[in-house]
């Protein structure tokens, strides 16, 4: 090996930390190898220590005075000829590289700069189809940044970075690469898109499920209430119960309805013996609600009638003489007459004996059955809305097939229309449905083991910061701990890693760390990193936009990578609004901003329309083809 790559010699070895005394020659800073210029001693750049037939590889973490070993401080007070190195792995001379080291360097071993040719040997295996190219190594444009999708998917990953550091672009770039039908005809990705950013970027490769969908390019998102388990259903519909007794009454009623439904419409795989309240069997919640409402609030004619009290309910009568019986399907509660116990009046009205104590819960559910925002759960379209006896036209298979078994590899679940009070639970439900379906079907060709699923969780800090109290964080914890075995991989994307539970973060095998300015966030990431890489992580605050340090299992060596952004029309819709466009108005591709004058008739009624409809696309938009 040439003299020109020589940096210095090993002077001190402590674990994987190696102190190197720089040679006089290498201090010039700039060397040429095969016509390529290199700056020697750059923090974060790689070095090589030849030992016999092996090469040890490491990364420079410190250069200059503070890198002097403690024992040398007295001898070399101006010890600027030192650097500290973190060892990473070793390689055979023929180029194969592996993590971990089998032997240590000793005093006097030579330390060399790693040239682009050598880097290429370590990083580059572009001919292997299980590597996807996301960009190129930051200081070497010719070397592609390759990520092993085997490890990326099954060992989970995290993409972290400050707002504007290029996270969404990185996600889009990864998804663009793995949704390529030519190389990966059966890839399978679900994106939980909380702000509706990805529809635009992946429109032609993805199915978009959304509440209040624009039918021309999106599908309506439904999560049938009967697919929820009991805890999830309570969380979304009834809220908390006063005591265990009330809860058990509701539990029994649901169980009974599911049982009746199953008897009438048997379903393969479910039997009466194994049925429990959590089994996803269709039942009619609306009628259950009505029944419970009656039992809780009803009054009855207590004198002079035959039959049970429940047969003599005292409904209020409206001005036209109709009984106000309400409407279970629409969530309209019945109205009852007041209790009457007058001395001279023959008509006596009383509360039903043994009324339930769940009035608050029923009122809450009633209002949810009426509010259109909750329709995606409580009125899940004509297909998944059970009739009173539990009859449905389509079962869960159709729902799951739409999400993970369609002709398109990516499914975007756009959750921007989910009411924020139930967002955590809805995410928890979605993830649990997917997890359970793929877990139990693990031996089938469409199961998780044979067709793994990548779950991309955008803005994960929103629902993973609650110490596993919420449904979402509980199931995510389960996925990151056990998903690997069943082919369910998580990709956690966040700008606030410090708000994500460390247990979840520490299970991520691969990190895409983008610029992170906040020191708490940085600390959290450094603590979770699989490698001992002070040198690289110290660069986190100064990374450029679109630059990421990729480290962990999916890459051979940590790489500082410039991510190639997808084409302009494939970028996610997370760009900041433009306040004042930098180009002149005649060339601007932006119709608004502070530089444009106000229109004469801005029609604020349309603004309110969008708000009320909870849909940014107003009805005025012309849909004519």
């Amino acid at each position, binding site marked *: 090996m040439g003299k020109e790559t020589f940096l210095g010699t090993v002077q001190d070895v402590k674990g994987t930390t190696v102190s190197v005394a720089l040679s006089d020659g290498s201090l010039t800073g700039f060397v040429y190898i095969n016509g390529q210029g290199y700056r020697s001693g750059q923090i974060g750049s790689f070095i090589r220590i030849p030992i016999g037939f092996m090469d040890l590889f490491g990364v420079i973490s410190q250069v200059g005075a503070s890198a002097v070993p403690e024992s040398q401080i007295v001898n070399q007070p101006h010890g600027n000829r030192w650097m500290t190195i973190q060892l990473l792995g070793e390689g055979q001379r023929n180029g194969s590289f592996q993590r971990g080291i089998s032997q240590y360097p000793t005093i006097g071993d030579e330390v060399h700069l790693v040239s682009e040719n050598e880097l290429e040997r370590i990083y580059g295996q572009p001919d292997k189809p299980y590597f996807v190219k996301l960009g190129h190594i930051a200081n070497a444009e010719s070397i592609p940044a390759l990520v092993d999708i085997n490890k990326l998917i099954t060992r989970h990953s995290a993409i972290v970075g400050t707002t504007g550091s290029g996270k969404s672009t990185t996600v889009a770039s990864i998804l663009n690469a793995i949704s390529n039908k030519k190389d990966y005809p059966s890839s399978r990705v679900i994106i939980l898109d909380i702000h509706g950013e990805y529809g*635009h970027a992946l429109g032609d490769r993805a199915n978009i499920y959304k509440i209040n969908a624009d039918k021309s390019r999106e599908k309506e998102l439904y999560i049938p209430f009967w697919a929820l388990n009991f805890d999830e259903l309570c969380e979304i519909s009834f809220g908390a119960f006063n005591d265990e007794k009330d809860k058990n009454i509701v539990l029994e009623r649901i169980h009974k309805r599911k049982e009746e439904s199953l008897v009438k419409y048997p379903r393969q795989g479910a039997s009466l013996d194994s049925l429990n309240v959590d089994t996803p069997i269709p039942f009619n919640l609306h009628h259950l609600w009505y029944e419970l409402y009656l039992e809780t609030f009803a009054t009855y004619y207590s004198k002079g009638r035959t039959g049970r009290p429940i047969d003599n309910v005292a409904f209020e009568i409206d001005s036209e003489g109709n009984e106000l019986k309400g409407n279970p399907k629409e969530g309209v509660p019945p109205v009852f007459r007041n209790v009457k116990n007058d001395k001279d009046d023959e008509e006596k009205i009383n509360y039903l004996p043994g009324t339930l104590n769940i009035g608050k819960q029923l009122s809450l559910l009633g209002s949810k059955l009426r509010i259109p925002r909750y329709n995606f759960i409580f009125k899940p379209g004509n297909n998944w809305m059970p009739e009173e006896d539990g009859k449905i036209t389509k079962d869960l298979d159709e729902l799951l097939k739409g999400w993970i078994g369609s002709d398109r590899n990516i499914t975007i679940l756009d959750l921007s229309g989910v009411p924020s009070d139930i967002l955590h639970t809805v995410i928890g439900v979605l993830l649990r449905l997917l997890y359970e379906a793929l877990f139990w079907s693990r031996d089938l060709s469409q199961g998780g083991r044979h067709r793994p699923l990548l779950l991309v969780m955008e803005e994960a800090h929103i629902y993973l910061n609650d110490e596993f109290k919420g449904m979402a964080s509980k199931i995510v914890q389960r996925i990151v701990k056990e998903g690997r075995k069943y082919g369910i991989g998580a990709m956690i994307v966040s700008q606030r890693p410090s708000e994500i539970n460390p247990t979840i973060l520490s299970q991520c095998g691969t990190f895409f760390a983008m610029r992170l300015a906040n020191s708490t966030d940085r600390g959290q990431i450094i603590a979770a990193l699989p490698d001992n890489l002070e040198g690289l992580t110290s660069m986190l605050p100064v990374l450029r936009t679109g630059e990421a340090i990729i480290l962990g299992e999916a890459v051979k060596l940590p790489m500082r990578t410039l991510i190639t952004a997808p084409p*302009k*029309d494939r970028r996610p819709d997370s760009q900041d609004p433009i306040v004042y466009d930098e180009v002149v*108005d*005649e*060339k*601007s*591709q*932006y*119709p*608004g901003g502070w530089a*444009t*004058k*106000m*229109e*004469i*008739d*801005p*029609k604020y009624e*349309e603004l309110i329309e969008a708000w009320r409809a909870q849909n*940014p*696309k*107003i009805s*005025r*938009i*012309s*849909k*004519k*083809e």
Partner: protein
Amino acid sequence: MKRDHVESSNVESIGYDTSTRTLEIAFLNGAVYQYFDVPEAMYTEIMNPGISKGEYLSRNIKGSFRYSKV
């Protein structure tokens, strides 16, 4: 809405719906907007080959009509 391709440094294509008086502009970056209640005469004018689309848009449409991203 059907749009016709135009030569311009910022506009990709332009369409118009007579019944709802809606002008649809697609910019080169892929973003599509609908301007509401635009007179048909203005559509005819902007489609005139001699007219610079960006300039016409800036002078007569931006800031004069309300719009929505579609």
